[in-house]
């Protein structure tokens, strides 16, 4: 995978200072949100850990010796949360980790559904495990590795399936654990 090419604004020092003027800040915030989404999309990153990722190239620009402060990042993430672009991972504590929806769960849902129908897998029952893990015989994923659906985070997959269920496009059969969840896609 080619390294992510940061946009020009990533090298702009004021980008790392929270702008005191509200109008400017709103734009700056949006710029950051877009950058985070495209960065995660490029690196297929579903989870963003605030403390760890602050050290990453994304938030720490060594070229111009600037880095984003935690407070500002959290503020940006809160804004993205409001926009439905991330979701805080409530299992690990407040504002420490989040799922980045560089595709919204609804998009994922329709993506999965179109792919399943294109493969002719509708009306079959597939387990959650089968859906997210390679076939032991062919060592191939049910979801094609070339597709972006590849290695989708289970949390995100769950969200997508729930959306499909409310749309009436899948039937879920609860199994003994999360992996043995049965899924039947409808056309």
């Amino acid at each position, binding site marked *: 995978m080619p390294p992510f090419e940061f946009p020009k604004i990533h090298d702009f020092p004021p980008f790392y200072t929270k*702008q005191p003027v509200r109008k400017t800040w709103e734009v700056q915030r949006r710029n950051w949100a877009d950058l985070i989404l495209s960065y995660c999309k490029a690196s297929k990153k579903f989870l963003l850990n605030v403390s760890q990722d602050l050290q990453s190239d994304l938030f720490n620009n060594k070229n111009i010796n600037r880095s984003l402060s935690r407070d500002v990042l959290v503020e940006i993430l809160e804004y993205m949360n409001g926009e439905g672009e991330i979701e805080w991972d409530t299992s690990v504590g407040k504002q420490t980790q989040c799922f980045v929806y560089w595709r919204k769960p609804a998009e994922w849902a329709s993506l999965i559904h179109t792919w399943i129908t294109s493969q002719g897998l509708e009306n079959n029952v597939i387990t959650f495990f089968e859906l997210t893990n390679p076939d032991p015989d062919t060592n191939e994923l049910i979801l094609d590795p070339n597709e972006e659906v590849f290695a989708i985070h289970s949390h995100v997959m769950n969200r997508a399936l729930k959306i499909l269920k409310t749309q009436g496009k899948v039937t879920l059969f609860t199994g003994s654990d999360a992996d043995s969840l049965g899924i039947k896609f409808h056309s």
Partner: protein
Amino acid sequence: MERIELGYTHRPILYEDEVFALISNNVTISLNSESRLPSTVYLTSHRLITVDDANPDSNSFQLRLQNIVSQKTESNFLRTNSKIIIEFNSNSNFFTASDVDENYIFLDSVADKRGLSNLSLGAGLDIPGSTQSQCPWICSICQNMNYTIPGSKCELCGVAGKSVETQQDQEVEHTNTCPSCTFINHPDLKYCEMCDTELYPNLHKLKIQDKPEDQNEPVKSDNCTPPRVLTIRFEKNTAFSFSSTLTKQLEKKLWEVSKNTPLRNLQKQDNRNGNLGGISSIINKSKESEKARNMLLDQALQDLDELSSKAKDIISLAKDIVSKLNQSNNDLSQETGDPDLLIESEFAKYLSKIGIDNPVTKEVAGSSYLRALAREMFEFLEDYVFKNSGIVLVVDAYCLYNKARSFSSVYPSDFIDACKLFGELDLPLKLRKFSSGLLALQASSSANIAISSSIQSEGISGDVFLERINELIDSFGSLSTIQYSVIDGIPLLLANELLFFYEEESFLCRDETIHEVRFYKNVFL
């Protein structure tokens, strides 16, 4: 040492011409090695006055400088304080003609020493009318403190003060209570108010008895009394400065000079002529004082006029120098980098800031004062503002303007009001108020007459400063307040306000680091 009266703030009341030379507090005084009293010492041109800290009203003394025989200063050693030991002749002044009225005061407070007082008064009477020194006496009617010759009329109520003689009698009477009922009667009464007993006989007797003794005593004291000693102890080593000041005052001998001032002579004459009592004399008196006051005021204003004429001289001098410097500058203009030249031009700049020939004043301009002021201010400030990147602090402008006016300063509020009129008068300057409340004077390009060529060339978008800032950011990449201030010679405060202003207007954005805040063009928008 003589007891004296103090003003209501417990400061000594000065004679005319008398000035404070030095005031020392936290000192202790002891007279003839008596107990030390914490006091404040006032050294004036005429006297050394000690005011007791605890009982200022009763324990305040004066020592006339002419009575000082010698002084000795001792420095502090270990725990002893520095001190001045002053030897003075306590009685000599009782017998000099010039000091009769001082004795009078003295008697006032130590009337119980009747013998002494009698005699000194006698001495005073021996020199009729020739007494010149002005020592305060208190009118028995209105309690006014008078500085005229005792025995003349009170300045306030016009009632003749008791002659020295009668005053003395009064003093004596004070001590006499009614022999039968011990009631203390008013001095003027001949019979006791209570029991009608005759009061006078006793007194006369007393006087007669006393007199012979008195006559002997002063003579003795005059010749034989050894000088008395006053010791003033100072905190730390301040005694030396006190002693040097004292020496200076002793050398000046101001008390001798003061007795011949014209004002005093005038007063003396008045006292002699105006023997009429009653209302007419009061009216005369007030007229006199008014005349004197007017004279004084006139003199004072004449001084001012003189000062302003001097100021005019300086202004013309400054102009001369400027024109001469300009000439020489033209000659030298080929040589560049000459430091002298730089200094000279700085000097010329400084000089050019001096002097507005005929400043507009409220008296001259009347109701159109502010407008006239605005025009004059514009004429003066125009150059200054345009030379300083088109913006200056109002405070700076105000100071400079007032300096140029030299003598007839304008009020700050008038200045601001006049600044507000620039727009109305179509003058290309305007008052700009920043969000922090900071006031600045700015060259306004919106005015009809475009004076500055720089504004004309750059003034398309109307905001020279933004253009300038953008220009600087383009060449430096970013701009800090200090940089901006230094490069364009704008006051730091103003540079800061300007950058903040344009940030607020979303033209700029900031990069905040531990070192500083740098401004960049706002690429977010």
